[in-house]
């Protein structure tokens, strides 16, 4: 027993290095972009989450307080204006509710399928990427709130923001549209065009690249690009505007540069679309707690 301990003490460094190398190789084997965090990793990230939340709330609080103190007058004016607007909107909402009910009843009469709003989960941003070669966000909701891998994420105004990546119990990582690994199908949203292409993020560049467009694709500067709809994305989420078009692959295809509608650096609140099957039977009750305007064609 003592001899073993002596041996361990004598060769402490070598043993440490060997263990270390084994662990290192183990992790290299686990390398892969498409893996989820295991339980241990998820636990560590969840344990660190309160730290992020605290730092973030301090930052937000100080920002808000400074703003109120420094331009008290404009904040007050803004408050008045917003109050007016809320009243206005409330009135409009009542009207819309009436129309919705009518619409629902008529659809029932005609036995139409109803377009359900997407089911969404809201979350707020608690962290960004900690290095310069990737663009991700960390939000404060995870699998406990119903978020899974590969769910589309939009900003509050409905613009596509990214897709969920690693999800732990209480946090989720979002791969942003301008990350080098981001890929999605894009569609030119113009009545006489509807051409398809592949949208890719570019590392260290806020503009997106859309390539694999047909050589005769009808795409012009100023066109709006939306998602083309696939297994992971619903159809018609706005992405950005075309700012330049050029031939690619020696003229066999075309490529376009796209300015995204959303500035990913300013995002503070996000919505994760957990279900975007737009057609449901009328007999199923509608979930009206969180709603995002679904696509209506």
């Amino acid at each position: 027993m003592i001899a073993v301990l002596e041996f361990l003490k004598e060769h402490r460094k070598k043993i440490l290095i060997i263990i270390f190398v084994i662990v290192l190789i183990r992790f290299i084997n686990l390398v892969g972009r498409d893996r989820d965090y295991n339980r241990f990793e998820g636990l560590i990230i969840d344990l660190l989450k309160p730290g992020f939340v605290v730092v973030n709330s301090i930052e937000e609080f100080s920002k808000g307080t400074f703003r109120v103190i420094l331009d008290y007058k404009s904040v007050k004016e803004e408050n008045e204006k917003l109050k007016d607007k809320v009243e206005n909107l409330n009135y409009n909402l009542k009207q819309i509710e009436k129309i919705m009910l009518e619409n629902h009843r008529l659809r029932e009469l005609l036995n139409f399928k109803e377009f359900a709003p997407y089911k969404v989960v809201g979350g707020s941003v608690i962290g960004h990427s900690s290095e310069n070669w990737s663009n991700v966000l960390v939000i404060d909701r995870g699998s406990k709130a119903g978020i899974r891998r590969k769910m589309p994420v939009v900003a509050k105004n409905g613009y596509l923001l990214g897709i969920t990546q690693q999800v732990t119990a209480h946090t989720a990582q979002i791969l942003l549209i301008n990350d080098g690994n981001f890929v999605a199908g894009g569609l030119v949203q113009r009545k006489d065009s509807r051409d398809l292409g592949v949208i890719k993020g570019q590392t260290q560049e806020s503009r997106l690249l859309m390539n694999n467009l047909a050589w005769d694709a009808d795409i012009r500067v100023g066109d709006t690009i939306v998602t083309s709809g696939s297994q992971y994305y619903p159809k018609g989420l706005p992405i950005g505007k075309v700012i330049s078009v050029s031939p690619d692959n020696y003229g066999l295809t075309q490529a376009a540069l796209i300015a995204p509608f959303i500035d990913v650096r300013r995002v503070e609140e996000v919505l994760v679309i957990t279900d975007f099957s737009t057609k449901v039977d009328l007999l199923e009750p509608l979930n009206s707690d969180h709603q995002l305007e679904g696509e209506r064609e």
Partner: protein
Amino acid sequence: MMVYLLYGFLILLALILQTTIIPYSLFYNIIPDLLLIIITLLAIYRGKTVGGVLGFITGLLQDWFSGGLFGINAISKTIVGYLFGFLKDHIYPKNIMVPPVGVAIATIINQLLVVSFTDYLLTGLSIEAVFKSVIIPLVIYNSILSIVINIVIYKIDNYLARRKFID
């Protein structure tokens, strides 16, 4: 024990700052690598074993909080920490020029390792673009911050020495 506790706390604080407040807007849209600065300085002060182990742990932590290729920071930071550990006893770490210059070199090595391990960066970007858009601003940023962090680490060491936790 106290040593590890304090250093652990320092690393966690750096990680949280790096991922929450600092991102963007401050300097050329570049995120400084506080963790790399801490590893480099501690490796110079305490040798290659501490450098390597700390590099691995902090790199792994960073990997969990950033997208891209998983494990890349763990490997590159381990190598940098281990390499800079060899400098212990060979240079005089109290010299004012050591932290900025050391961290600058460490940043270049670390970034080149990251880029050369990641295939989509290696094929998608030219080496000039890599230097111009990320490495040079990052080197400047890290070097400036290293002076501040060096003072923090120096204060911690002083405190520990006074309490006789270390010699």
